[in-house]
């Protein structure tokens, strides 16, 4: 009998302590970040904690989930987010989930000025900007040159020659990349829903027709890397990071910028509307953009950084990646994502569903 009482008491105490802790944690000097996998390497977090005393809690996510989560919390629950720059202004207008950035608190001279200006311009809502650039990259092709030498552009992924050896994501970048490579300008059609729908219908037909070449529509990085590494897949649309990672293991595999232009994205720092730890958030932004730290990140993840002087700290083979994969003529040809107007994603979603379900 006494045992039961004891156990129950322990449980109650434990329970209440845990609950108390759960609620207390929000007041702790903790910075809650929602970001992409790999964007917050453990070494940098440790260093940040050491320098500032703030502990960091990382939640892995992607653009869509970031928006959904923040929408459901009405901009709370996290202190810092890292959405892509094209996914900010429309959700700010719709759900008001971010707060404007106080650029006075940002150490702007360590940021690439043109990138900063572009991001400021793209995230402008009611005269205020909502983001600071952090990482940029491109989506192009990762090709096993020995097995699929002829893949040069997104449209080559539809080639029946490579039946069952091709993989791409069933997400909007695929629609847009294919669009560019087939001679459309999807971004120009954004403003005209009717025309955009027409474009999507075209893409639907083309991608359904191209289904036999697809091994699987990858939707996680693991899946993509494994199938390319094992040579189950010969060509895929993916980020340069995947290509470069694999290139280090197998020189046959590399990232190729499509002839119609790679798709360029910029991931940013944005502060949720109900961030509870602004000081830490700003400190973290400045910390991550310090050249040394930014270079550490790039060396690890191989993505480009918005930190101006990081290039001085890059490993030679990482630098080589950039000169090989993203030379100036490729950079000039990049199709940068403009802001996504509301409603477009739903149209795209329907098209993607139809493609997936089609036989």
């Amino acid at each position, binding site marked *: 009998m006494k045992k039961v009482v004891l156990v129950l008491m322990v449980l109650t105490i434990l329970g209440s302590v*845990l609950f108390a802790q*759960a609620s207390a944690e929000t007041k702790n000097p903790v910075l*809650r970040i929602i970001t992409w*996998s790999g964007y917050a390497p*453990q070494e940098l977090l440790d260093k940040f904690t050491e320098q500032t005393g703030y502990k960091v*809690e990382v939640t*892995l996510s992607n653009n869509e989930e970031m928006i959904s989560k923040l929408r*459901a919390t009405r901009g709370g629950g996290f202190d810092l987010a890292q959405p892509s720059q094209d996914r900010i202004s429309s959700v700010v207008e719709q759900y008001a989930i971010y707060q404007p950035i106080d650029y006075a608190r940002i150490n702007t001279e360590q940021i690439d000025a043109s990138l900063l200006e572009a991001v400021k311009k793209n995230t402008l809502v009611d005269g205020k900007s909502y983001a600071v650039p952090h990482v940029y990259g491109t989506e192009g092709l990762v090709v096993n040159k020995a097995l699929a030498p002829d893949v040069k552009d997104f449209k080559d992924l539809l080639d029946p020659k490579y039946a069952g050896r091709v993989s791409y994501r069933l997400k909007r970048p695929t629609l847009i990349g294919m669009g560019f490579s087939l001679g459309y300008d999807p971004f120009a059609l954004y403003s005209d829903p009717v025309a955009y729908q027409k474009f999507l219908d075209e893409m639907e037909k083309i991608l359904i027709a191209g289904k036999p070449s697809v091994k699987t529509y990858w939707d996680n990085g*693991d899946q993509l*890397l494994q199938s390319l590494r094992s040579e189950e897949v010969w060509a895929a649309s993916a980020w340069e990071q995947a290509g470069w990672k694999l290139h280090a293991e197998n020189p046959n595999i590399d990232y190729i910028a499509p002839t119609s232009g790679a798709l360029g994205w910029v991931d940013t720092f944005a502060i949720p509307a109900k961030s509870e730890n602004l000081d830490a958030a700003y400190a973290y932004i400045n910390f991550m953009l310090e050249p040394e730290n930014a270079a550490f990140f790039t060396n690890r993840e191989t993505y480009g950084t918005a930190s101006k002087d990081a290039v001085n700290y890059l490993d030679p083979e990482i630098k080589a990646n950039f000169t090989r994969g993203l030379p100036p003529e490729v950079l000039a040809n990049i199709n940068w994502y403009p802001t996504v107007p509301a409603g477009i994603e739903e149209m795209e979603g329907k098209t993607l569903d139809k493609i997936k379900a089609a036989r």
Partner: protein
Amino acid sequence: MIRSLPSSKRYRGGFTLFIVLYFIFLFAPLVVTMVLAFNDSMYPSLPWQGFTLDWFFGNGPEKYGIFHDQTNLRSLYTSFKVALAVMIVSTFLGTCAAFLFEQENFRFKNALYFLMIAPLVIPGVILGISILMFSNTIGLFIENHMNVYASFLGPGFPLVVLGQSSFISTIVALVVSARLKKFDHTLEEAAYNLGANKAEVLWFITLKYLRPSIIGGAAMAFLMSFENFNTTIFLVGSQATLPINMYMQVRDGSTPVINAISFLLILGTSIFAVINLSKGNKKIL
């Protein structure tokens, strides 16, 4: 046919073979997952690159073993916290429900009983989204009318606990009811007759009798919460539970640290299972 009846050798052999295959089917993926936790490779797949314990104890820079992987450790801790809280909440609710439906009579009892078993036939995804939307609506209302930000109504720890408890409580209730049904009420009367008051009867007789089923129900609640994905995915906030966190990792490219976690989980639950079952609770469900 059965133990006591004769049957041909072929029949018996065939049957045994079927069962052996079944168990291979059951355990193959687990064994593979566990073995690959010791693969000295950066990827959780073949080929075998040699044996290593790095995915348990490695401390960077290349390989972060599970014991140094802050994100995974934190999500493990979160899962424990959630499971413990769900266990407490749903054991309490489930036991209350068992008493209510087995021992009391009231109007609309049948309707309420039906509501109680409804979560069994509601897909977890729908429980998740409906609770998310409901709490969001309330949260918006509070925010707009009272100008207070009710953070506990957004995705996060409290919502995960409530969401999981909403259906786990039903399961606990069924487990406890099953035993309460067999309870001989003259035991209560005997205790009254010997001078016990209502509280003493509840504590010394009824609850004591129910103890195995309450413990069993609590254990089930803990495990079900620990591995829940479908409901949690919609309700989780900044603190991801282990299954959610693992899903995110698999999605974005993982290392055999996933296998190491799986190894520990399989080991842990197996030990737990054996202890629980060897105590004679044959029926877990």
